[in-house]
């Protein structure tokens, strides 16, 4: 049976440290304002019976993904392994996917990302630390807009303005037998990633042991990111 990847997030284990957010930023070189991995926090109840909830969020890699349905060029598409990924070579920048996405996890590169790496020559310690421009010039890499992860998967690696982007479940790492960066970085092992079709996998046994929930089930998108042990 073909592999079908998914993720479980154990909300009892999650400590809300944000290591997943940071690991994703580091792995995928996402610019300011673009969060492939993120979180939402809620405070609810009436004093003194108040509570706080931290929910990590990312692309749900839905089985019936609205973003894939509306994309006019198949730039946003679904792979056989269940990843919902985006090919910027085909993207026309219409933002239909963002409008159709009920979770708000698709982002648009309105400006050239990291443009300051081509222009900013100020340094924290003058003569002591590299400026962004020096770093970019001396490394001779297409560094400012470069998304190594995307390039490793055969996509356009330079992040130009005018296209959308989102979490890929780190499919470049999965192809090498590694777990997504957010899973590895989690200090509490709150995230479990694996093949949903493999009955013996940790994710499949976990999903059998707990009653999972998904975000916005009423949308009927059949997400592949599951939450277990919700506090509510």
């Amino acid at each position, binding site marked *: 049976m073909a592999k079908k990847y998914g993720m479980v997030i154990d909300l009892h284990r999650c400590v809300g440290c944000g290591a997943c957010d940071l690991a994703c930023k580091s792995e995928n070189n996402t610019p300011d304002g673009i969060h492939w991995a993120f979180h939402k926090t809620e405070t609810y109840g009436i004093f003194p019976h108040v509570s706080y909830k931290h929910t990590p969020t990312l692309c749900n890699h839905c089985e019936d993904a609205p973003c894939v349905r509306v994309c*006019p060029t198949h730039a946003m598409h679904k792979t056989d392994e269940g990843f919902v990924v985006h090919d910027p070579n085909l993207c026309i*920048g219409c933002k239909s996917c963002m409008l159709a996405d009920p979770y708000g996890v698709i982002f648009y590169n309105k400006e050239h990302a990291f443009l300051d790496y081509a222009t900013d020559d100020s340094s924290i310690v003058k003569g002591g630390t590299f400026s962004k421009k020096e770093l970019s010039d001396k490394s001779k890499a297409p560094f400012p807009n470069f998304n190594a992860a995307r390039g490793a998967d055969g996509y356009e690696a330079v992040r130009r303005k005018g296209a959308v982007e989102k979490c890929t479940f780190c499919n470049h790492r999965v192809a090498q037998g590694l777990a997504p960066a957010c899973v590895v970085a989690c200090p509490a092992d709150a995230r479990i990633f694996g093949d949903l079709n493999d009955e013996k996998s940790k994710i499949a046994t976990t999903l059998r042991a707990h009653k999972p929930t998904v975000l916005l089930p009423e949308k009927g998108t059949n997400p592949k990111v599951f939450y277990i042990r919700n506090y509510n």
Partner: protein
Amino acid sequence: MNLLWDVRVSLDLFLGGLGVGAFLVGVVLYYVDAKAYEGFVKKSFMVAPLLVIAGLLLLLTELGRPLNVIKTIYAINPTSFMSIGIFLQSAFVAVALLIAFKVLTSGVSALSSKIVYAGAVLAGLVGLYHGFLLSGIAKEPWNNAIPVIFFVSSILSGASLMVLFNLESLENLVARFKLPLIINMVLTLELAAVFAWVYNLALTTASSKHAYDVLISSFSMEFWVLSILMGLIAPLAIFTLVILNKLSLRTVAIPTFSIIVMGSFFLKNLVVYLGQAV
């Protein structure tokens, strides 16, 4: 409000709708009596492709990567209305330009009725596509009433624009077609479609109720005053007075047909913005 689609998308839908409406009214008069309405038909067929092209050019400036549009020719997604719409609009523009060229060089009598028929079918599909572009995204305010609202609004605004461009034919149109009566019927149909849309929003789900709350609170001016009162109810009332011989159509024609055209823009713009606000 974080807008992903700004006024350029509304203008594309508005200008495209005007073009489609103008073309279809030209088609009707072409089949009724091409000789008697030659001037009207000629203007309709000339204006229609220009309006649609103007809208498409505005839309291109909205796209992040407009040059990639060429890739929509081979990277087709049958579940995306935009993907289908690109082909429909291209086909309509090609046929409409051909008709405009024929009309300009050889006159209306040189047109083949088959190509006019093909143009009419494509115009109808493009007019429906404008609404389906939004309803296909499936946000609460962009429900399945939108294609009907947009299509009827396009017919109304396109026909009104062409009447404004052909005021010399007004008496003839009134005598032969009872123009105020027809316009009032279409205005009533549009009001009914808008009512169905709002009713659906107000009563269906929690999300649609939220959309309704935003509509009547944040967009009350655009909705009640500019779209409904100015764009639909005022012309309906004025044409009723004309039918009852209380007013002369010639006196009120310019302001009334103008507010119908403006109301169409405000209504489409409101729908585009509301969908993004909730």
